[in-house]
């Protein structure tokens, strides 16, 4: 049982991050806190990709003279890391749009609390 948890601790870490993110988005009333939850959720996915690329005893994927290229187990997988660079950019853009919308909402209603917002909309 302990093996099951310790052997997959990177995955458990991802799951906990996703859960924290979902909690923030679902239960927090403040729109900025919801956005923070969203950011944590995305970070969970990004860290999952990064941890998947990890190999024990392997080095960075830059060719060195000591290690032959033919032995791929000497090098980490670089692809998930490069994919996540793009995903991070997407996350930044999403945050930008989210905060632009939040500023707009605040200018129109004068509050960022979801309950007060819904009251004012009705």
């Amino acid at each position, binding site marked *: 049982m302990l093996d099951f948890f310790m052997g997959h601790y990177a995955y458990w870490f991802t799951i906990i991050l996703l859960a924290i993110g979902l909690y923030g988005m679902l239960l927090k009333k403040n729109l900025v806190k919801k956005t923070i939850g969203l950011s944590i959720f995305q970070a969970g996915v990004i860290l999952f990709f990064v941890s998947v690329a990890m190999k024990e005893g392997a080095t960075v994927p830059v060719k060195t003279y000591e290690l032959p290229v033919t032995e791929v187990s000497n090098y980490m997988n670089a692809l998930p890391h490069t994919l996540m660079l793009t995903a991070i950019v997407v996350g930044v853009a999403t945050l930008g749009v989210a905060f*632009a*919308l939040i500023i707009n*909402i605040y200018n129109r209603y004068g509050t960022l609390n979801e309950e007060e917002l819904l009251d004012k909309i009705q």
Partner: protein
Amino acid sequence: MIGSEIPALIPVTYILFAILIPVIGLWKREITWHLSLLGTGTATFFSAWGFMHLIQTGETIRYFFGGWAPPIGIEFVYDGLAAFIVLVINAIAFLVLIHSKEISKVEFPGKKLAYYTVSMLLMLGFNGMVLTGDLFNLYVFLEISSLSSYALIAIGEKRAPYAAFRYLIIGTVGGSLYLLGVGFLYTVTGTLNIIDMHVMLPQVIGHSSVIAALILMIIGVGVKAALFPLHGWLPDSYTFASSTSSALIAPIGTKVAAYILFRVVLFLFGVELIDHQLPVTTIIGIFAGIGILYGSIMAIAQSEMKKMLAYSSVSQIGYIIMGLSLANPFGFIGAVLHILNHAMMKALLFLVSGSIRLKEGHSLITKFDNSYRKKYPWTMAAFTTAAISMVGLPPLAGFFSKWYLALGTIDNSNWLLLAVILISSLLNAVYFFRILEKIYLNNPDTESTEETEVVERDEVGFTMMFPMAVMAIGLLLVGIFNAYIVNVIFNMFPAGF
């Protein structure tokens, strides 16, 4: 030969115009509308050309970016289905943007520059999603189109930014879940290319992460497609956005997401492969059926025309997903045909509601009366065509997609879904004939006062009438020349049909 470059040319056109519009627009603000028409027009021309080329030669074009062959490089796959969808979405966007000339002066004055730039980015995202053959590249295009649609929805009424914010939260969670699914598949297959992964999946199908990935991807894309329990963002977003935004996003956005579901379920996994593990198609079919009925009933309950159309979208997307869940040739034909039909019908209906809003300042169904028939005879004629097509009366286009879907349910002996199709057609009739009655019949309570009232004819201008007329005639033509289109769809079947 330029024919083989078509898949790359279409998105590049949009990138070019997304840069050109702000640069030229700062110098001459009036011509942003013309530039956006030039952009969508060029893309429509390329997609029509590519579609013709594809029908003649029958060869799938695979475009490798930078000359890197897959699975190392990224490729665009221009097969029959992709060519068809690309042509539909670009043509609809072109027509909707023609209509936007008058709307833009009233609903978003002073924001034209930003609006047309973002709409080019939106179309870039949608075209990229349809064309790409790489799962991660698809995620990037998905986010480009989503971010643009959040921005477009936020330009609108007072409540629009809040509706857009809710869509942003739900939509980004959907995108992240899709990405997580792609990650699971990458860890077991080591590739991101759809064709390459399709070959490898049978060897690893027993792995639990493959099934988890499938579920994550269906939920993630289902959010964008507004598949029944995940549709919460849709009604508010479509109602409070400006008329052009809803006419642009409603017919195109959910259809493209449904197309991605087709790619994932039918082309990437294949029906036989997944149904051995989990009855995915049955479950999707049940949700689609509930969604169809729920959307229709909620549409009847609305008194605002745009909100009614938004709920009707939830119901209509259910038909397309139902065609997927049937997983037989009839269901596939019906679904692909319904993507075309519904794109035209919903775009036309949203354009009509935009025209009414421009002239009357509202689109409340309760305030509609029979003076509209005299004031806007052609707009109302276009509306009637679309409404009858939505209900599904021959010879209009809407009948044929429902016909093929019904044939598909009979083929699978799925009587429950057949009943859903029939009942929802009746419900469609209820919420559209309610409006038609108000427009065309005299109201007995106000009849005596009405005779003294002289109603002047006040038809909308050419830039608004032209796209509506084209779509209304298109609905009739698609209905009449239905057999030719079905023949074309026959060449799009995924392997194993």
